[in-house]
């Protein structure tokens, strides 16, 4: 029994989500192999080889893997699939794009967004925006899985795996990468941050949203938002925390001007400590918050920045 992790990486380094996925793979009960399909990706492969618990790294290097097109990465994983009992990818935009292609081609079910491995064929996964947890069992010969990263710790450094280079699967050829616009930020990545400061509709405008920046700066926090704030155009799409956005579980989550719709709670209720700042004492966010302040966020947030010193 061996598990294959389809690594998310940017050719130079591994994404944090890969580390959580490796932990989940190790819990499936056998050896863990990691597939790096990329372009000039030997440094990502070397990084994977140094992760504790990784028995082998498989590197497929070709120009058509450079931008992570799902069609090509999935084809590469499929060339290896017959040797594995489990194939896992992180439940991120990257992994969700690839894994179902692998599952369907193998004619097996995919188990999405698992949060717990009960046994090698039985898994827990949230459904209905996390309002219920399903325990599902797969009878398929290969379990294709996406891993909710907040459900598993990041694998630690300390490995020394061999890197095997394999020949690349052919270019699918019907899709092409055009461009990528990634927001540049000095802040930590939203899904990996220890502290997240999020704003909602109550922020009122894109201009007002800037009020949260000094707070995030002071705490070294990532910034997030509710869907309402994203839809209103206050902040970029990829800040959205919730059922259909990012799932976060930081040590501290500060929700400012967020009422707490179930779709938002689905994305943050596993945070260790939740603080809510809202002028409406009846806002549902207070039902999950460890500490709440009822008040005008335009007064409370600057006070908080001052108090943090």
């Amino acid at each position, binding site marked *: 029994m061996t598990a294959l992790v389809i690594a998310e990486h940017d050719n130079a380094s591994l994404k944090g989500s890969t580390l959580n996925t490796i932990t989940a793979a190790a819990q499936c009960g056998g050896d863990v192999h990691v597939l790096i399909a990329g372009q000039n990706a030997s440094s990502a492969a070397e990084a994977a080889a140094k992760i504790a618990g990784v028995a082998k790294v498989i590197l497929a290097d070709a120009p058509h893997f450079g931008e992570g097109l799902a069609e090509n990465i999935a084809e590469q994983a499929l060339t290896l699939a017959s040797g594995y009992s489990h194939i896992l990818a992180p439940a991120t935009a990257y992994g969700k794009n690839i894994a179902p292609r692998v599952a369907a081609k193998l004619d097996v079910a995919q188990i999405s967004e698992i949060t717990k491995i009960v046994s090698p064929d039985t898994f827990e996964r949230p459904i209905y925006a996390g309002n219920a947890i399903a325990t599902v069992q797969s009878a398929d010969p290969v379990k294709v899985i996406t891993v909710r990263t907040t459900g598993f710790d990041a694998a630690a450094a300390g490995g020394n795996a061999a890197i095997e280079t394999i020949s690349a699967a052919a270019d699918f050829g019907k899709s092409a990468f*055009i461009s990528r616009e990634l927001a540049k930020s000095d802040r930590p990545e939203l899904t990996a941050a220890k502290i997240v400061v999020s704003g909602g509709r109550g922020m009122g405008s894109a201009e007002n949203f800037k009020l949260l920046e000094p707070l995030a700066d002071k705490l070294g926090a990532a910034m997030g938002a509710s869907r309402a704030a994203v839809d209103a155009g206050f902040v970029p799409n990829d800040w959205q925390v919730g059922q259909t956005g990012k799932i976060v579980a930081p040590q501290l989550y500060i929700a400012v001007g967020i009422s707490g719709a179930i779709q938002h709670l689905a994305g943050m209720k596993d945070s260790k400590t939740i603080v809510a700042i809202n002028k409406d004492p009846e806002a549902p966010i207070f039902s999950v918050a460890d500490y709440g302040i009822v008040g005008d966020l335009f007064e409370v947030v600057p006070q908080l920045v001052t108090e943090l010193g």
Partner: protein
Amino acid sequence: MKVLVPVKRVVDFNVKVRVKSDGTGVDIANVKMSMNPFDEIAVEEATRLKEAGKVTEIVAVSCGVTQCQETLRTAMAIGADRAVLVETDTELQPLAVAKLLKAVAEKEQPQLIILGKQAIDDDCNQTGQMLAVLLGWPQATFASRVLIEDSKATVTREVDGGLETLALQLPAIVTTDLRLNEPRYVTLPNIMKAKKKQLDVLKPADLGVDVTPRLKTLKVSEPPKRSAGIKVPDVATLVNKLKNEAKVI
């Protein structure tokens, strides 16, 4: 150019579901059902492409129980020209739905299939990608912008950290994200017109597809409850609690 738009009937997004006490599932008896919100965005996008003269016919497809006809009528009220229901009482999992849609696509020969990125009941996020690989088509998931020109789709996608743009050869699969468009309200005259549109009903056996579920749900349980904490009177108390009680700063 013909577009196929699969739509799913799900528990309305405003309903907070309850887990059944016997742990067999969630209670959806007498609960409001609606079209999956992402699928509504898919129907709207297809309709806008038709209004822009890029598309000639929109066919909505649903797989599931008889009542999915209501969901298909909604799709036709938004703008679909006709509808196909693949009717079954069997619990359908994404792989089975993808196989049914593949069979429908082979009959209908669309150039584009637009699906929601995920259904808000099982939160799987699989069907579009599965359908793409089964048909051997390229895919652009989580779309926030779709341009159709000649035999090409240029799609901007929402990815972690920003946006990414791909060019796909048609026929292709697109799955919708929230920002692609804002679906219109359906008007009464359009609801009336939708009632007269063609709706064909097929069975999975007519399409030669085995829809037997592959995953067995052993139990469904309540998530761990998070109890409400305390309201603090001022910012100084909050900072003190965060430092000394929660120890998170």
